[in-house]
């Protein structure tokens, strides 16, 4: 029965594919490398497929081992000197191979899963580190540090990031949450939802994300929804260069508390809103925009935080 055979063959193939995927996923998930393999081989030629990974590698003191970055990797400035292997969204496998790396690092949120598999088939060691939440970002730094053999630098970096986040929390104290809208795109208006690490940062910065009720990570919002949710602070994270134009864009909605109180800010998102070692800095910037009063009083070293107006 050819049909029956076909079906069996088909099932067998599916099984092989599933098993292979499970194996690859395990391999690629950035699961902690076993100590033996780690001590055996500390990677010396690293290709980074994500700006946040590039930043983290530099922060861990492994910047001199990076041999390839994306065109989006512009921080720290030394990253600009490293050969490019394509864009963040679309890296070139050939270019990656050409750099003869012994480790390729990326984030599952940006790096195409298929490409990871292809690179692994080609014999490359690829590690992807999830960075979808603040907790995951901390974890990614820890795992990355282990992978590149910089455990101590990693622990130090994590302590610094943690203390930056703690300091923001101390400044904010028990202040009332302000309703915030963080805009990442116009026409249509796209906001950061609560399921992104940016949404999480907004909440940690003493804000209440008005796009938080949407199920999407990056919801499109209509003007009326925004008016109804009455944001007290609007942060423009789209294009930093058009600051004045964006400010004016909101002026016709005079009922918005953010317009009345003049709390519309622009934020150069491409520089700092990255899921990497600078999230502590990013958090402080956001907190300063949302609760400037808490930081104005910082010089007086007031413990116990500030209570907003």
């Amino acid at each position, binding site marked *: 029965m050819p049909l029956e055979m076909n079906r069996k063959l088909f099932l067998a193939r599916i099984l092989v594919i599933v098993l292979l995927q499970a194996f690859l996923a395990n391999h690629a998930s950035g699961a902690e490398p076993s100590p033996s393999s780690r001590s055996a081989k500390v990677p010396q030629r690293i290709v980074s497929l994500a700006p946040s990974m590039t930043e983290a590698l530099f922060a861990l003191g492994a910047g001199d081992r990076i041999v390839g970055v994306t065109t*989006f990797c512009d921080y720290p400035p030394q990253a600009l000197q490293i050969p490019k292997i394509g*864009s963040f969204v*679309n890296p070139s496998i050939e270019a990656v191979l050409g750099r003869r790396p012994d480790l390729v690092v990326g984030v599952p949120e940006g790096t195409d899963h298929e490409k990871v598999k292809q690179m692994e088939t080609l014999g490359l060691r690829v590690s992807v580190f999830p960075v979808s939440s603040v907790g995951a970002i901390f974890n990614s730094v820890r795992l990355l540090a282990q992978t590149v053999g910089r455990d101590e630098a990693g622990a130090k970096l994590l302590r610094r990031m943690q203390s930056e986040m703690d300091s923001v929390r101390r400044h904010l104290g028990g202040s009332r949450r302000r309703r915030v809208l963080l805009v*990442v*795109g*116009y*026409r*249509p*208006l*796209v906001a950061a939802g609560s399921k992104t690490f940016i949404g999480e940062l907004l909440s940690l910065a003493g804000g209440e994300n008005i*796009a938080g*009720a*949407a*199920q*999407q990570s990056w*919801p*499109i*919002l*209509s*003007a*009326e*929804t*925004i*008016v*109804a*949710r*009455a944001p007290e602070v609007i942060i423009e994270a*789209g*294009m930093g260069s058009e600051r*004045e*134009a964006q400010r*004016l864009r909101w002026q*016709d*909605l*005079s*009922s*918005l508390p953010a317009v009345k109180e003049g709390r519309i800010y622009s934020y150069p*998102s*491409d520089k700092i809103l990255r899921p990497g070692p600078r999230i502590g800095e990013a958090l402080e910037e956001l907190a300063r925009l949302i609760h400037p009063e808490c930081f104005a009083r910082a010089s007086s070293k007031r413990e116990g935080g500030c209570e907003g107006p």
Partner: protein
Amino acid sequence: MKVLSRRRMVLVNGLLLLLLFISFVGSTLLGPVSINLSEAIRGLFSGGPHTDILFRARLPRVLLGLAVGGGLASASLVLQALLRNPLACAHILGVSGGASLGGILGLIVFPHLFLSTNQQLIGEISWVPLASFIGALCSMSLIYRLSLVHGRLHPYHLLLCGVIFNAFVSAIIMFLNSVLDFYQAQNLLFWLMGSLSTRSYLTVTFIWGYVLVGCLWLWRHGLSLNLISLGEEGAMQLGIDVDRTQKQLFVASSFVVGAIVSVSGMIGFVGLMVPHVMRLLLGNDHRLLFPASFLAGGIFLSWADTLARTLYAPAELPVGVITAFLGGPFFFFLLYRESRKNILHEPSR
């Protein structure tokens, strides 16, 4: 063809006008946020959230939707009649694609940085539609030329050219998308997705102006279009300057489509669906079909946009998604019906 009596004209259009009015009121009052009308009106001088929602967020958008829907339906009605092809519409023929490419290039070339915000707004309102219009006109003449086989318009060539041209334009837009600044690129998506969101009455006024001028221009040719849609030879024998009329109608519909695409991007299927439904309901007299399609296009798009705003509240769906969900299956239905009718030899209705 039935004789078009004044009574029928008034009756049909009166009814549609009434429906349009109901849709206008309905889509202004309905949305993800419920508003208090009396509070909104009371707040006209003092301001308030209800006023902002009704008069700043919703009203301009609904008004824009009426013009866009009406204009797209009218332009596509003309294209279907001119090309004697039921599958023709600005979108499928690649005219909208050409218009968005023109608009995008216009936006990129336009020296944003040297102008203040107000000047920019005026520039966007006058220059971008012009660029879109040029894009629409160029793509239409290109596709028209390419589909002429021995001096006659070949319907399948035309559709094929349109589809290929659309793919080509999308490729150019994707190319710009990947070479441009990441954050500028996000804004290009608007052209591909389409959106009616606007808060500017200035934009709305301008677009209504463009659309009305263009549609009246088209409407004037209703009678000639009746004859042309039955066959060019026949129309010529009856004393119509077919070539001249065709050219005028192509230019006028490019004008309408260009202006519309420049403010709303590519919203598909409105143009395809509405004229057909009207034809099924009202017959083939273009003198009646023009106003009827215009009104029905407005009605259809205003409800589609209301759904887009409300279904997934607080998030919003692209309005093109709604029109495509309704229009896609309808397109297949038409294609199926046509395939049973041998489109090559019989002028379609």
